[in-house]
C-alpha cells in the first residue's frame, strides 16, 4: 500500500497553502495574471502577422495553428501549476544550499514532495482564459465532438506532461553533480518554446531531432493532431514509448543523483 489517500490529502493541503501564499500578495497576484494574458495575446498577434503574409505553415492553416497554440499553452500552464518551478528552479537551489536535507527526512515520496511543494496558483487562474480560447478555436475549426478523439487528445496531453516532467527532471537532476542552480532551467525554457511551432517549419536535421530524438512535437502537435484526426496510431504509440523511455531514464538519474548527493555543509 502506498497510501494514495494520504497523497490526495497532501495535494489538497499544498493547494490550500499555495492559495494562502498568493492571497498574501494580492496586488502582485492580479498584476501577474494580467501580464500572462497579455503575453499570450502578443504571441497570438505574432501568428496573425505571419498569416497576413502566408496562407499556411507547412500543412497547417491558420485555425489549426491556433489549436496548436491553445494546446501548447494549456500544457504549459498545467506544467507551471504543478512541477515546473519546483523542479526546474527550486530543486537545483535546494541541492546547492542543502535545503533538500529537510525534505529527505520526511516519510513521503521525495520526488512527489520536491515536485509539488509549491503549487503555482497564479497559472491556475491564468489557464482559465486559455481553456476559453481552446473552446473558441474548436468552434472555429468546426470540431464535431467524439469521445474517441477527446479521449485521445486528453491522453496525449497527459503524455506531454509526463514527457516534460521527465525532461525537466533529467535537466534538474544533473545539479546533483554540477551543484549549480543557475542556467540549468533556462535550457529547458528555451527548448520548450520550440514545441509551440508546427514541426513543418523545421527542415532536415532539426526536423528529425524534434520529431524523434527529442520529440518536442509531443508537447502540442501530437495532441492537436489527435483532434484534427491526422495522427497515425503508430506515431501516437511511438510518442508514448518515448515518454516511457525518458521517464525511466529520469528516474534512474534521480536515484543515482540522490546516492551522489553531498549536501551543503552547515
Amino acid at each position, binding site marked *: 500500500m502506498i497510501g494514495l489517500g494520504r497523497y490526495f490529502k497532501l495535494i489538497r493541503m499544498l493547494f490550500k497553502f499555495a492559495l494562502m501564499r498568493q492571497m498574501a500578495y494580492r496586488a502582485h497576484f492580479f498584476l501577474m495574471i494580467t501580464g500572462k494574458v497579455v503575453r499570450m495575446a502578443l504571441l497570438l498577434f505574432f501568428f496573425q502577422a505571419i498569416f497576413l503574409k502566408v496562407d499556411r505553415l507547412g500543412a497547417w492553416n491558420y485555425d489549426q495553428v491556433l489549436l496548436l497554440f491553445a494546446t501548447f499553452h494549456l500544457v504549459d500552464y498545467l506544467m507551471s501549476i504543478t512541477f515546473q518551478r519546483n523542479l526546474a528552479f527550486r530543486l537545483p537551489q535546494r541541492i546547492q544550499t*542543502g535545503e533538500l536535507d529537510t525534505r529527505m527526512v520526511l516519510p513521503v515520496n521525495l520526488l512527489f514532495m520536491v515536485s509539488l511543494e509549491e503549487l503555482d496558483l497564479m497559472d491556475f487562474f491564468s489557464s482559465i482564459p486559455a481553456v476559453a480560447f481552446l473552446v473558441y478555436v474548436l468552434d472555429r475549426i468546426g470540431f464535431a465532438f467524439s469521445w474517441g478523439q477527446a479521449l485521445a487528445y486528453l491522453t496525449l496531453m497527459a503524455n506531454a506532461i509526463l514527457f516534460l516532467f521527465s525532461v525537466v527532471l533529467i535537466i534538474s537532476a544533473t545539479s546533483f553533480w554540477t551543484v549549480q542552480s543557475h542556467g540549468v532551467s533556462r535550457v529547458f525554457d528555451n527548448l520548450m518554446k520550440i514545441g509551440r511551432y508546427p514541426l513543418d517549419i523545421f527542415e532536415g536535421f532539426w526536423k528529425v531531432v524534434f520529431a524523434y530524438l527529442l520529440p518536442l512535437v509531443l508537447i502540442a502537435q501530437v495532441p492537436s493532431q489527435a483532434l484534427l484526426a491526422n495522427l497515425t496510431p503508430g506515431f501516437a504509440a511511438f510518442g508514448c514509448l518515448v515518454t516511457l523511455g525518458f521517464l525511466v531514464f529520469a528516474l534512474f538519474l534521480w536515484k543515482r543523483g540522490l546516492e551522489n548527493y*553531498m549536501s551543503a555543509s552547515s
Partner: protein
Amino acid sequence: MEEGTRELHVGKLVRREATDAMKAITVEDLTKQYWFFEKEAGFAGSVRALFSGKKVFVDAVRGIGMDVHVGETVGFIGPNGAGKTTTLKMLSGILHPTAGWVEVMGHVPSRREKNFLKGIALITGQRNRLFWDLPAEEYFEFCRVVYEIDEGLYRRNREALVELAEIGDILKVPQRKLSFGQRKRCELAAALLHDPTVIFLDEPTNAMDLLSARRVRRFIREMGSEGRRTIILTSHIMADIEEVCDRLIIINRGQIVYDGGTRELNQGNGITKRIRIVFGGPWERDLVEGLGKILEADDEEVLLEVESERSVEVASRLFAALPVKDISIAEPPMERIIESLYLKGEP
C-alpha cells in the same frame, strides 16, 4: 533463523547478528569521502578547471564506530569540519556512506524507508524546514498528514510541545515575521509532533541569543528525561553538552578521539580552565602561585590556569584567603580540549 538473531540485507551483503533490543544505533567502520574539482583562483583558473579540473577527495569521516543505546543522550562534538554533521546526515539517511555499516532502529538509514523516517527527527540549527510564508500551525497540520499522526495523539503532543517550547502566542504568525530563536523553537516542536524515538539535533542553539539557547536546552533535557528516546546532539558549544548529555563523543578530523562520560572528560585528561580574579586590595603572589599557573598578573587582576576538576575548589580557596572582588571561570574552548586529548597520547 535462530531465535534472538536477525538478518540484515544491504545490496548483496547479508549479515546475521544477535538482536539487542536496547541498541538504538550501531555504527561500524563508517567512512564518508567527498570529492570536488580543484579550481585555481581567478577567471583563468575557472576556465582551466572546466577542461582539466583535478578531482580532489576529502575524507570527512574515517572509519568511526559506536553503539548508542535506547534512552541515551549523546553529545557529538568537535571543531568545525570535524565530521560531526556528516555523521549525523549518514545516520538520518541523507548521505550514503562511502564504506562501513550504519543501523538505526534496525533500519539501514540510506534506504529511507517510511517506517524508519517516521521514527526519527532531524533538527538543524541552520536549515529552515517550515514554510516561510505560512504560520507554524499550518506546518503542524502538514506534519500530521505526512506522519499519519492519530488525531488524539496529535492533539496531546501538540498541546504539550507548544507549552514546552513556549510558542503558544506565535503559532499563527507567519514564519518570516518571527525571530530566529522563535522559529527554531517552532521547528523543534514540529519535528517532535510524531513522537520520534531517535532524535538528531544538529547544532540546535547555533546563532541563538542566550535566553533562547537556554530554553532550547531545557526543552531537549525534558525530551530525553523519559528514557525512551535516544538523542544525538552535535554542537561546538560546551554548555549545550554539559547541560544536556550524559555521554560525550568527540570527533576530530573524521575520527573519534573520546567516547565517555561528560563529567569524566575533565578528569585526568590534563584539561585546564582559566580563572580570572579581580582583587579589591593587595594580594600575595606566593599563595596564588601555589594554587595554579599564573598566566597574566598586575596589581589588581590575575589570570590563573588550573586543572579543570580543581577549578571550583581553587575558587573557594581564593575567596577564603584573599580580598576577591570578582571572579570568573572560563570554559576551555573545544580546540584546547581536543589538543589536550591528543597531548595525553591516549585519546
